[in-house]
């Protein structure tokens, strides 16, 4: 469903290799966790997958379509929830959702049904007619999540999605991610909350300094049932002993 082949990103302004020769395969119907310390290259990778950033070397296939050569078909297959809810905030929540629905050609009936369902679940329905400017950080994050779920994408890509959410909304989102996969969708998400990754993901990849250092199912990564994902993460990404 999502394939990264020898992907490298070098930033032109500082010649820094943010991602180095990254290979990843995300299968259909799985929840894939993407982990790494701050500055490891997670957001850069997500930006390359979604076409926000150019790839220096390698190729990325989304639902079989090359993001560089066939961007419209590739982009039709996924939606993104970025790490910071930076959206055009002078419009109302419902105007934003109508915008997204039109872009992904969601019918009136479907959008009505889904907006109502998701907005009520996330307790945002009553605020949809308000200007996004008046929303809190968490409300904006919820709006972005609803917008991302609305087109029922094949792949849901989320960059640190739980950051601004309250516990109830975080729980709802986790359930929705599971539900999305049950329906045949795929979820690719980055997170710092290792507990969430441990409970939710079928497979995880750990990236450090732009390089993939581990990618496997949790069972295989753990080998020994005593250790947690946090232990593995700290062991793999530590320069010195903590």
């Amino acid at each position: 469903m999502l394939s990264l082949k020898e992907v490298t990103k070098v930033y032109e302004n500082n010649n820094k290799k943010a991602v180095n020769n990254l290979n990843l395969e995300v299968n259909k119907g799985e929840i894939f966790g993407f982990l790494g310390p701050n500055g490891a290259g997670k957001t850069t990778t997500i930006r390359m997958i979604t076409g926000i950033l150019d790839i220096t070397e390698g190729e990325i296939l989304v639902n079989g379509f090359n993001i560089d050569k066939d961007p419209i078909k590739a982009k039709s297959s996924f939606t993104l929830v970025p790490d910071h809810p930076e959206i055009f905030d002078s419009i109302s929540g419902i105007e934003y959702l109508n915008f997204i629905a039109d872009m992904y050609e969601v019918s009136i009936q479907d959008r009505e049904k889904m907006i109502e369902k998701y907005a009520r679940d996330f307790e945002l329905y009553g605020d949809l007619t308000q200007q996004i400017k008046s929303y809190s950080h968490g409300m904006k994050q919820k709006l972005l999540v609803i917008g991302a779920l609305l087109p029922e994408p094949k792949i849901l890509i989320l960059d640190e999605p739980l950051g601004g959410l309250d516990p109830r909304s975080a729980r709802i989102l986790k359930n929705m991610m599971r539900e999305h996969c049950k329906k045949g969708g795929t979820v690719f998400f980055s997170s710092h909350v290792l507990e969430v990754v441990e409970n939710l993901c079928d497979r995880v990849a750990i990236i450090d300094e732009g390089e993939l250092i581990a990618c496997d199912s949790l069972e295989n990564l753990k080998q020994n049932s005593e250790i947690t994902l946090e232990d593995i993460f700290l062991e793999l990404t530590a320069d010195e002993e903590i």
Partner: protein
Amino acid sequence: MKKFKSLVLIQIKDIYYNAQNSMNIRNKKLVYILQLILLAAIIAPAIYFSLVTYQAFAQLNQPELVITSMYVNAVILMFFLGIPIIVSVFFFSKDIRFLTALPIEEEKIIFAKLSTVYIYLLAIGAAFILPSIIIYAIKTGISLSLIILGPIAFLLAPLLPLLISSILVLTFNKIIRKSKYKNLLTMVGNMLLIVVIIMMQLNITQKAADPAVIKNAFLNNESLITLIGLRFPPSIWMTKMLLGSFTNTLYFILINIIFVMALHFLARYFFKKSLLTFTEGSRSNGKIRYKKASPGWQLFKRHMLIIIKEPTFLLNALLSMVVPLIIYVIMSFSGQFSIEILNSAQIKPFMVLIYSGIMVFPAIVSNISSTVITREGRAFWQTKVLPISDKMNIKYRIMTTLVINLSGSLILGLIGYILLPVNLNMVLVASFFTISLTLFLANIDFKINILRPLLNWSHPTAAVKNNMNVTMTLGIRLILGLILFGFYKLSGNLFNNFNSIVYILSIVFLILYFISRYYLYNIMVNRFKKISL
């Protein structure tokens, strides 16, 4: 005091670094060189003007009036430029809430914000008042009173226009703060305020231009200074203060103190009720509507709404449309211009040029295409991840510019058609010229924005005003103007009438548009793809 100093310093630094970053030039030396060139471009004409004015007043044996005259001009400019800066710093700044949370008195926050405006205005004063004081000192000899009071006069100069403008703006916005359309009212109201100030100045100038008043002024030395100072009375005290008059020094300093105290009193009153409500998003109780629209329409609407919903962007886009109307209204009111002038036999042959100039005005003064990517700011990522082609993404950005500029041209064209002696043929020729030049410039300006996207801005002003893209578009227009003037001069009697010249130029611009369009959609599109946050 330490807190206040830090607050002022951080505000000034913010403005300075924003202005520097907006140039989007990595080479620091080049930034300084450009700043120096810009400074020289402002100061050089002011020095020349001061010299000419000095010589004129020296012949009347009143050389000190050069200071009065330049001070009055600077004050008028400060009034004019101060209002939009005050509005932007107070009502549309995003840091008010953050500043409110700091352990510092509310009036100090207001004063810290005012000090940033003061710095802006002091820079204007430096360009106009300083040269006049220096030239006067060099030519007449440096006196002790000039050494002591000269810098004081210079430093105090922005205070009065700043304080009067602030009190007017804050009072006006206090009245409209509860309105649903407070942003629109703020802009329209403050634009009207500028018009009123200009009209008042023109009215006073007309009074001063009365032959009886002028005759009296030349007969009486005291009257000449009053005549110049009529437009801004404290300038009389300021001039006399520099000449060593103790009473006038007292008057000048006293009036500044009174205004500072008035603002201090008002600051507390305005802060919470007025300023904070302006930073709130609007809350609507409207119904949820599920409307379907084409992706193209949604993209067009998005770019239009980015302009309409952000007051700074709207003001920037609309001002270009209304400037000719404001000039016309002011000049008509002041009696400096009438339609009869345009109906005269000498002007008539040039009518197609005048009418074309009016219609094409929005395309020439508007630079919205050069900031269409920048205006989106950090929300730019969104259209990048949508399932739309890059060409489509570009197309609707340019279309926004075309619709705004051509609407402006249409309005100006209709008003011109009603007021000016133009025939249908002239309208067609001017329309053709307007469309081809608008298309060409919108494409060229957009290319500048692709090359210099500048997405990380903290204040909308940085996106559309303190942006080198805008300066570059003006440079392009200047070069274009020179080429057109050269073409006109060289063509001589080659063409029978001006209609043919405008017609040929329209075809040239249309060809240039198609070339630039090809270049944009086939070559520059790759550069557009590479734009990232």
